[in-house]
């Protein structure tokens, strides 16, 4: 049941699309896989697209927040894209604020934002 999340590389950017509900183990595995891929490819940015995800609990939010901080330590910038209205509402009601996290409406906007950040 434990499935690895594919991480694609496009030029200097890693692209991740979360397609299914994350269990704890998959989330932790993803954290390790992404950092290893950053190290192996010397990518400078990451886009994590959450479009198909219909809920995020505090655990997944913590894993996401942590992986963003960890990527930052390795010199990479991360943009989160595609947060659904229901997810945004429940995260804030739950009391979770992903502060200092770059976000964009969708993958396209996220790629643009990241390119600008990397060129800046």
């Amino acid at each position, binding site marked *: 049941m434990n499935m690895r999340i594919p991480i694609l590389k496009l030029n200097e950017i890693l692209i991740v699309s979360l397609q299914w509900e994350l269990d704890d183990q998959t989330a932790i595995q993803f954290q390790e896989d992404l950092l290893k891929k950053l190290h192996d490819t010397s990518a400078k940015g990451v886009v994590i697209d959450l479009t198909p995800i219909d*809920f995020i609990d505090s655990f997944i939010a913590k894993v996401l927040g942590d992986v963003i901080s960890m990527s930052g330590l390795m010199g990479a910038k991360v943009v989160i894209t595609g947060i659904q209205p229901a997810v945004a509402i429940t995260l804030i*009601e739950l009391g979770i604020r992903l502060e200092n996290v770059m976000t964009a409406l969708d993958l396209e906007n996220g790629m643009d934002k990241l390119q600008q950040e990397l060129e800046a």
Partner: protein
Amino acid sequence: MAYRSSVDIHTEWDIVAARQLGRNEAKKVGFGTVDQARITTAISELARNIYLYAGAGKIEIERLNEDGLFGIAIIASDEGPGIPDVRKVMEDGYSTSGGLGAGMPGVKRLMDDFRIDTERGKGTKITAIKWLR
């Protein structure tokens, strides 16, 4: 007759099973996507608390129909150590697990009715209800 189904919580995988059951039941009751997300998230938090603090317990999901008012109840119960200070766990930002889990105030905000019954050494039962509007 209220329809009730349940998932025993022993492992991390059971947390996934519990929230899937909850989402399916929420859909059947007729909740929209935002309330489905609220209910699923609340179940995930409650199930994780059982897993972290009590080790084992269960999540029951009950479809409610009271005087034509439809809703869903999440009943999270365990025979763990109980909560020593209920007032404290209802304070925002209080956590004994180092920030894992948004805590009870978050779950309370996601749902309409929220109630904790706990006894030290005996266990905890949390009932959270969402009504269909």
